[in-house]
């Protein structure tokens, strides 16, 4: 029991003292997850609109594949990206392995189906009545789509925040693609795994507390968006 109490007091000391290494890891994690989520949102939101607005052969299959990708384990994404960007892979020449850029590629692959599927569900749930009402008020198709986007903004933001939450907490991609290199690719999750195995319980706990706090903040924001929707 003592070592838990000691661990927690050490963790709090590190956080309150704004320990450079703790902050560095936390900042890198936050930056990588934010950038990956931003890229995935830029691709996923328009993609979900395209899927919702056009009827094409294989649309049902595409939605099923996207839904399946929601439960894709991060180590599998890590393995897939590793296959492509390792020295022997087709993109080996780009030297992306063990770099933050490599992690971003993997995290975008993780976040993309989450943002696309959740946005698509939001659109499909409400588009018929929103679009029909806008058209009946004299909107052009473009104006009606803009109204749809405006009306479902909280649902879309919810999708983006959910993806960010998943990305910031993933370990498989960061470990396999990033290689857990100190100061370069060490994220909150990979650092927690490493420090725990090294017996640096207090350090690992301090990172865990930061990760949990980040999750709490994300959920609070998500909740406030959902409350704003009513």
């Amino acid at each position, binding site marked *: 029991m003592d070592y838990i109490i000691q661990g927690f007091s050490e963790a709090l000391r590190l956080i309150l003292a704004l320990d450079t290494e703790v902050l560095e890891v936390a900042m890198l994690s936050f930056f990588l997850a934010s950038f990956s989520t931003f890229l995935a949102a830029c691709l996923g939101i328009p993609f979900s609109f395209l899927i919702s607005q056009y009827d094409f052969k294989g649309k049902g299959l595409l939605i099923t594949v996207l839904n399946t990708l929601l439960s894709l384990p991060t180590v599998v994404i890590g393995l897939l990206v590793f296959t492509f960007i390792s020295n022997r892979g087709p993109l080996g020449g780009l030297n992306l392995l063990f770099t933050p850029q490599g992690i971003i590629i993997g995290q975008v692959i993780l976040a993309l189906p989450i943002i696309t599927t959740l946005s698509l569900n939001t659109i499909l749930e409400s588009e018929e*009545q*929103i679009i*029909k*009402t*806008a*058209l*009946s*008020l*004299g*909107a*052009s198709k473009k*104006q009606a789509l803009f*109204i749809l986007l*405006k*009306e479902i903004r909280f649902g879309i933001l919810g999708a983006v925040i959910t993806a960010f939450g998943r990305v910031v907490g993933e370990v498989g991609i960061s470990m396999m693609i990033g290689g857990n290199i100190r100061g370069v690719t060490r994220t909150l999750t990979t650092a927690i795994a490493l420090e725990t195995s090294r017996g640096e319980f207090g350090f690992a706990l301090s990172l865990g507390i930061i990760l949990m706090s980040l999750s709490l903040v994300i959920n609070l924001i998500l909740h406030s968006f959902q409350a704003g*929707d*009513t």
Partner: protein
Amino acid sequence: MAAAIISGENIVKYYGEEKILDIEEVVIEEGLVLALMGPNGSGKSTLIKILSQLEECKQSKIYFQGELVTAKNRLAVRRKIGFIWQDPLLYNTSVYENIALSLKFRDLSEEKINTKVGEALTRLNINKLANKNAKQLSGGEKQKVSIARTLVAEPELIFIDEPNTSLDIDSINLVEEIIAEEVEKGVSVLVVTHNFYQAKSLADEVLVLKEGRLVDQDRPENLSIKEEGLLKYI
């Protein structure tokens, strides 16, 4: 016989294998109130959506004020038609913005929008709701806002979808008052209703749909003698 505000030819609509509508010709004369009646599933809502260009019906020909509706003039035609839905969707913004939206779609100046929205709020007696979020309104208030945002665009033809459903007696009276006022101004109105007595008191003409076919179109007094038969449809 007055000129037609809207007419349709060869309106045939399928949902999957099922034929929903099969109407050779339907004509709505300018300046009249028409009641569209028929049992549930007879195709009333689909017909008004096709006539108002909210739903596609490829092989049909729709004429608005004598002009064939095509992809080119579809938006302009839609902007001359207003809709009052039985369960209106109001957008997640203020009542003022909800009403102003119809005018913003038409690119009116801020000044004109302000004046017209103010008039609409006064006409429906909902000035005090102007800054309230539309999602927080009661059913009756929602319907008033929905009527205001339709009328603010000054449509030449108004479709009213089952005004009695989910409305209290005051709101029903309000809808009937509005219909009378708009007709006075020369606006044509088509009311979808299940209430034969309301149709008789409001409408100049009654259209009866059954299983997607137009089975009767006549003045209410002429339909009265067939009342027993008609009630069977409805």
